[in-house]
């Protein structure tokens, strides 16, 4: 079984016709339910549900507090290499971009780790571009060995691997995987990924499943918002998360709703995803998967992130830098521009001011 089978069931599904038939009473009926199915989730993502955002928010807030308490886990991304053989039209690291590529040595990884650890963070997310030549699994393992000295939870956001490779990384100390499908529409995916191994839609789609089978504790999936109709992408992201939770009940499954940010290159978002759209997505997902994690990165601006804490966010990045070695060297081209450049301490202070406990550590390497 693969989530691809689920996706195929929706190949000819007429979303517009489905949305056109939704009445306010349908939204109210879903809001009154305790457990939502996929169609209920789609009702909450529909245009008619926009009239019920406050009701959705009240329920989403209640569910989030019930299941997660008033707490938000903090983590930060660490870019260790930007070598990449893909040509994703929307990415600052794509192979054609004439940037000076860099890959951190173990010593440089340690220098970055020391700086991050000094902020109190214990969760780090390791990122690379896709290059099996420059950043093979062995290199990632080498970096993990260094990072283990400073962090109690190490996640990876790298190119898709085979199950055995994920198992190797789990054994080395990695406990979480983040991998965005970017676009769940296969045709749009093909247009946006004209060259490189990332063209293989299904290999990427099945990556979180392989990672979970290999023993990852957490899996985070997402679509890059702005590349295709956001309602469909939000829908399939939610279904993907739900599919993983069903298949791997012990894994902590979460989603990210990243919106496309400016980056080196000239790609313009194909679809505008407003704050209101983003909020509707987050609320609908929370009601669909009350215990699902929701990760909000520094792609979003401070004033919006601060409000999303009350609407369902459970994990936030802080003190982010999207350039390889950028914390130490204070230079280099990032994968994209961040919108919230507050320090970890500033984000923590914001959480406290809103009546939330910033959580620096929520896993213990065993």
């Amino acid at each position: 079984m693969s989530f691809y089978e689920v996706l195929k069931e929706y190949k000819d599904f007429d979303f517009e016709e489905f949305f056109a038939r939704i009445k306010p009473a349908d939204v109210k009926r879903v809001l009154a339910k305790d457990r939502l199915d996929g169609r209920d989730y789609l009702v909450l993502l529909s245009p008619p549900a926009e009239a019920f955002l406050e009701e959705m928010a009240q329920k989403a807030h209640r569910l989030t507090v019930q299941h997660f308490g008033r707490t938000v886990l903090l983590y930060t991304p660490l870019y260790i290499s930007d070598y990449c053989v893909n040509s994703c039209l929307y990415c600052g690291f794509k192979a054609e971009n004439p940037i000076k590529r860099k890959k951190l040595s173990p010593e440089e990884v340690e220098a970055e780790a020391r700086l991050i650890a000094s902020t109190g963070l214990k969760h780090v997310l390791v990122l690379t571009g896709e290059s099996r030549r420059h950043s093979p699994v062995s290199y990632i393992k080498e970096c993990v060995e260094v990072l283990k000295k400073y962090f109690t939870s190490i996640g990876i956001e790298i190119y898709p691997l085979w199950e055995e490779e994920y198992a190797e990384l789990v054994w080395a100390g990695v406990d979480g995987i983040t991998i965005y499908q970017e676009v769940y529409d296969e045709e749009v995916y093909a247009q946006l990924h004209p060259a490189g191994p990332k063209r293989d839609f299904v290999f990427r789609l099945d990556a979180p499943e392989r990672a979970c089978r290999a023993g990852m504790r957490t899996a985070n999936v997402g679509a890059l918002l702005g590349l295709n109709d956001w309602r469909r992408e939000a829908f399939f992201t939610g279904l993907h998360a739900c599919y993983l939770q069903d298949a791997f009940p012990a894994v902590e499954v979460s989603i990210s709703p990243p919106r496309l940010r400016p980056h080196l290159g000239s790609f313009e978002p194909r679809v505008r995803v407003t704050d209101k759209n983003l909020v509707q997505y987050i609320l609908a997902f929370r009601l669909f998967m009350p215990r699902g994690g929701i990760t909000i990165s520094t792609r979003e601006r401070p004033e919006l992130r601060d409000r999303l804490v009350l609407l369902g966010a459970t994990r936030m990045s802080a003190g982010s830098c999207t350039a390889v070695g950028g914390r130490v060297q204070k230079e280099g081209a990032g994968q994209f521009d961040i919108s919230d450049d507050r320090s970890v301490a500033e984000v923590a202070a914001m959480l406290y001011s809103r009546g939330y406990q910033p959580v620096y550590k929520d896993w213990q390497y065993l």
Partner: protein
Amino acid sequence: MKDLSCDFLEIGGQKLKSRLFLGTGKFSSNRLIPEAVKASGAQVVTVALRRVDPGFEEENIASYVPKECILMPNTSGARNAAEAVRIARLAREAGCGNWVKIEVITDNRYLLPDNYETIKATEILASEGFVVLPYVSPDLTVARKLVEAGAAAVMPLGAPIGSNRGLRTKELVRILVEEIPLPVIVDAGLGRPSEAAEAMEMGVAAVLVNTAIATAGDPVAMARAFGLAVEAGRLAYLAGPGEVVEYARASSPLTGFLREE
């Protein structure tokens, strides 16, 4: 008249006055923990080892547990017995004492415990000298195996963690209270002080509460309310509640004629 002055709960060689155990995972600030402990009178406080961070005193959840309390690390995040055992050992190495609440969960939707793995972990940890309090779905056979494995108490859930749905497992918990020669502590699901009192009235030894207190509008006041309810329920249990009957006792329609003799 009965009172609670000489009523103690004995676990792991400790005599506890308070029968309310407090969880800590969901407070909006670690700084509320000592206040909630004080207001509730709790003497046993559970903390997930995954959240314990000895290197960061200011944000270390364990450092907010008052020193006079028994710190009971829990194995939140363990997916099998081996991980639970590993977490318990790490907790002891980190100076968290030798009490441990075993929590083995392989279901992220309802957070229901894996009884089988919990029994295995209990056996190993009890043999290593831990005071083991396993969190389980209420089941008589499982509870008996936990007794054999050396558990110090049995902690059946009242309803899924964080659900605030109350003592939904009442009949099964009642059987454990009647049959198991260990303290039975209702852990998880209690949403209201009245539900804690209800559990205590039926003879459970203690209750463990987190969500209902930590996520209340005023957590400290709710901690106090739970403390009072647990005491009231315990006293009611000791006092021996009257029998519940479904009809008035004024007449004896079937045997009244006997009085005429």
